[in-house]
C-alpha cells in the first residue's frame, strides 16, 4: 500500500541517518527528534517550514478552508495524506433517518462535496470506518510514531500517545496545510510530566490526567509540548495513553507525547494503514529510536506519584477545577489568589454548588459515556463492568456513544450493548454527541451530568447545563447510584 510504503521509506531514512551519526552527537528529546526530521526549511530566527505527514479533516473547521483554496485557485497538495470524517454534528440516533438539522446537514454535505472535488478520502456516515476523528486515526493505523499530524481540532493532541507530534490548528492553518502540506512553526518548550507508582484498583488514566490539570491549572502547559514519562505511563494501554494525551490541551499544551514501545507496536501491527511484514519490522526499528535520549534536558518537569491518586471529579467550569471523590466542593473564601477566588465563586454559582458539599452528595440527572477522551472499547468495558446486573437510577438518563463504528461493532460483538441497554442506558451511533452538543444530544438548562468527556466549560453540553468530568467507571457508578460514588468501594 502507498501509505505503508511512505512510512517504510520515512523510517528507513531515520535509521540510515542515525547510523551515519549525523545527529547522534547531541542528546535530544523525542519532540526534538520528530521536529528535526520534518524541517523543510529553517529561517535564521527559528521560523520553520515544517512538513506535515497526516492531515485529519472534519466537517466543522474545514468548509472555509476548502473555500479559501477555491477562491485562490489553489490545489490541495497531498490528498493522499489527508483523511476526512464527519463526527461533530452528526446525529447518534438511527442513521437511516435523514438529518433534521438543516444547517448541520449542509455542513456535512459540504464536506462530501469538498472531498469529492479535491480528491480527499472521506469516511462518511455510511462508511464502516466512520467515527470521531481522534478515535479513527489510531484505529485505522493512520496515527503512527514519529509522524507530524494536524487537525482543525484541539484534541489532536490525542495522537501523541503513539509518539506522533500532533496538534490542533485553526481553519486558516487547515487551508495552509491543504495548500502546502506544511505549517509555519517555531519550536516549543519541552515539559516532562513523570508519573511513577502503581494505580489502585478503580483509578484510571482519566484520573491521572484530571489530577495533573488540577495541579498545573488550565494554562500550566501553555507554549509547551509535554512528554509523559514514568513507570505508570509505561504500564498504560494505548487506549489509556490516548486518554492522557487527549487532555494535554486542557492544560494549554501544544501537544502531548508518549514514547512508543512494545505496547504501541502491538497495537499498530495489522492495522489498515500500517506497513506489513519486513516493512513493519524496519519501521519498528526506527520507531524505537524516537524515545528521548537519557541525557536530554526538558525545559520544565513535574513529578507525580500514582499511588496517591484517587478517582477525580470536576466541580467547576474548567478542567483544572477538580477534586478527589472523597473530598468536598472547595470554599472560594479559603483561596489565596483573588483571581482563583473570583473564578471559583463564579463557577460554583453556575454549577449551583455550595462550598463544603461532599462530592458523593452531589446528585446527577444525566450520564454521558463517550467523546474522544473515553469512548474506546476498553472505556465501554470498564463502564459495563460497573453496571452489569444493575439498573440506572430512576432520576438519571444515561447515554453511551461509542467513538467509532468499529468500537460499536466490537462492543456489540462482546454483548456490551445488551449490558448497557438492560441497565437502562441508551446505546447510540458513533459521534461527538454530547461532548459538545452540536447535534441534538444536549443537556437541558440546569441539568447536571457526569460526563467522560474533556471539557466542563459553561454551556459546553448545552446552555446552563452542568458538567462533571469523570472516568467511565465513575460515570457508570454515578448512573446507578444517582449521585457520585467512590468506584473503589463499588
Amino acid at each position, binding site marked *: 500500500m*502507498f501509505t505503508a*510504503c*511512505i512510512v517504510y*521509506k*520515512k523510517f528507513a*531514512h531515520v535509521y540510515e541517518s542515525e547510523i551515519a551519526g549525523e545527529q547522534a552527537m547531541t542528546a535530544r528529546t523525542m519532540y526534538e527528534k520528530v521536529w528535526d*526530521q520534518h524541517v*523543510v*526549511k529553517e529561517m535564521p*530566527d527559528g521560523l520553520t*517550514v515544517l*512538513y506535515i505527514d497526516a492531515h485529519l479533516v472534519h466537517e*466543522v*473547521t474545514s*468548509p*472555509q478552508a476548502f*473555500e479559501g483554496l477555491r477562491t485562490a485557485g489553489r490545489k490541495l*497538495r497531498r490528498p493522499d495524506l489527508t483523511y476526512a470524517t464527519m463526527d461533530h*454534528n452528526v446525529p447518534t440516533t438511527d442513521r437511516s433517518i435523514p438529518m433534521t438539522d438543516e*444547517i*448541520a446537514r*449542509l*455542513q456535512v454535505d*459540504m464536506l462530501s462535496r469538498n472531498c469529492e472535488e479535491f480528491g480527499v478520502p472521506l469516511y462518511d456516515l455510511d462508511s464502516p470506518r466512520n467515527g470521531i476523528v481522534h478515535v479513527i486515526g489510531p484505529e485505522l493505523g493512520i496515527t503512527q510514531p514519529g509522524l507530524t499530524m494536524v487537525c*482543525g*481540532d*484541539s484534541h*489532536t493532541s490525542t495522537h501523541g500517545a503513539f509518539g506522533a507530534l500532533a496538534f*490542533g*490548528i*485553526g*481553519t*486558516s*492553518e487547515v*487551508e*495552509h496545510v491543504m*495548500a*502546502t*502540506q*506544511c505549517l*509555519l512553526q517555531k519550536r516549543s518548550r519541552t515539559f516532562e510530566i513523570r508519573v511513577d507508582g502503581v494505580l489502585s484498583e478503580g483509578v484510571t488514566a482519566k484520573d491521572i490526567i484530571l489530577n495533573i490539570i488540577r495541579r498545573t491549572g*488550565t*494554562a500550566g502547559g*501553555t507554549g509547551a509540548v509535554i512528554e509523559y514519562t514514568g513507570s505508570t505511563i509505561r504500564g498504560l494501554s494505548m487506549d489509556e495513553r490516548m486518554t492522557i494525551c487527549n487532555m494535554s490541551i486542557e492544560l*494549554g499544551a501544544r501537544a502531548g507525547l508518549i514514547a512508543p514501545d512494545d505496547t504501541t507496536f502491538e497495537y499498530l501491527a495489522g492495522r489498515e494503514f500500517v506497513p506489513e511484514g519486513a516493512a513493519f519490522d524496519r519501521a519498528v526499528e526506527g520507531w524505537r529510536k524516537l524515545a528521548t535520549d537519557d541525557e536530554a534536558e526538558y525545559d520544565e518537569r513535574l513529578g507525580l506519584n500514582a499511588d496517591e491518586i484517587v478517582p477525580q471529579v470536576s466541580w467547576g467550569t*474548567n478542567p483544572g477545577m477538580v477534586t478527589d471523590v472523597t473530598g468536598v466542593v472547595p470554599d472560594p473564601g479559603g483561596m489565596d489568589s483573588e*483571581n482563583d477566588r*473570583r*473564578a471559583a465563586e*463564579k463557577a460554583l454559582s453556575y454549577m449551583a454548588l455550595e462550598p463544603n458539599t461532599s462530592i458523593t452528595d452531589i446528585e446527577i440527572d444525566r450520564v454521558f459515556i463517550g467523546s474522544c477522551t473515553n469512548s474506546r472499547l476498553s472505556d465501554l468495558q470498564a463502564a459495563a463492568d460497573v453496571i452489569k446486573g444493575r439498573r440506572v437510577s430512576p432520576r438519571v438518563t444515561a447515554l453511551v456513544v461509542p467513538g467509532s463504528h468499529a468500537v460499536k461493532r466490537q462492543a456489540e460483538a462482546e454483548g456490551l450493548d445488551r449490558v448497557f441497554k438492560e441497565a437502562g442506558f441508551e446505546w447510540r451511533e458513533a459521534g461527538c454527541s454530547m461532548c*459538545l*452538543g*452540536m447535534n441534538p444530544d444536549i443537556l437541558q438548562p440546569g441539568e447536571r451530568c457526569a460526563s467522560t468527556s474533556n*471539557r466542563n*466549560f*459553561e*454551556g*459546553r453540553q448545552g*446552555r*446552563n447545563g452542568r458538567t462533571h468530568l469523570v472516568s467511565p467507571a465513575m460515570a457508570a457508578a454515578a448512573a446507578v447510584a444517582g449521585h457520585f460514588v467512590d468506584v473503589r468501594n463499588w
Partner: protein
Amino acid sequence: MPEPFTTHTGLVAPLDQINVDTDQIIPKQFLKRIERTGFGQFLFYDWRFTGDGSPDPGFVLNEGRYRDATILVTGDNFGCGSSREHAPWALQDYGFRVIIAPSFADIFYNNCFKNGLLPVVLDADTVRRMLADAAEQHRYTVSVDLEEQVVSEPRGASHRFEVDPFRKNFILNGLDEIGWTLQYEDDIAAYERTQRTG
C-alpha cells in the same frame, strides 16, 4: 488574506474574567455556518443574551457606553479550549481589533494573527489597572502601535509589548502566509523526494 494591522486607537471594554474559553466566545451551536463572516452577532452569546434571546443587561458588552468598543481588555488565558477560528472571526466581526490580556491560549493567539485581530500581552498589573480604568473612566481609549510595539494610554503612560517578528511582519503587511510558504515549493518538493520517495 488578513486585513493589515498598523495602528489602532479605540474605546476599551473590560471583560474582567480569567480563562475565558472558546465555548463562551462563540458557543458551538453557531459553528455550523460554512462562511467566515457573520459570527459577530453570536459573540459571547450565552452571556450577552438571556434564555429567551433578550440582551442580558448585566453583561458588560451590553452597557451602552461600550457599544463602540474596539479593544477588549481581559484576564489570563483568554481563548482557552478549542481550535475554532470562529472565535477570532466572531470577535473581529463584532468590531474588535485588539485584545489585551496578561496571557492567551496558544491556538487562539495564533488564530488571531491570521485574521488581522491583534492579541497583545501586557503584564498582569497593567492589565488589572486598565480593567479598572475602563470600568471607571468615561470613554477610556488607548492606542496600539504595532510597528513600535507600544500601547499608549490617555494619561500618557505607554507599555511596550512583545510580538514575534514573523507574526508582526505578516499582520503588519497583511501578507498571505500560504503564498509565503509556497515560495519554498522547491524545498517542499525536495523534502518529499528525499523523505518519502515511495
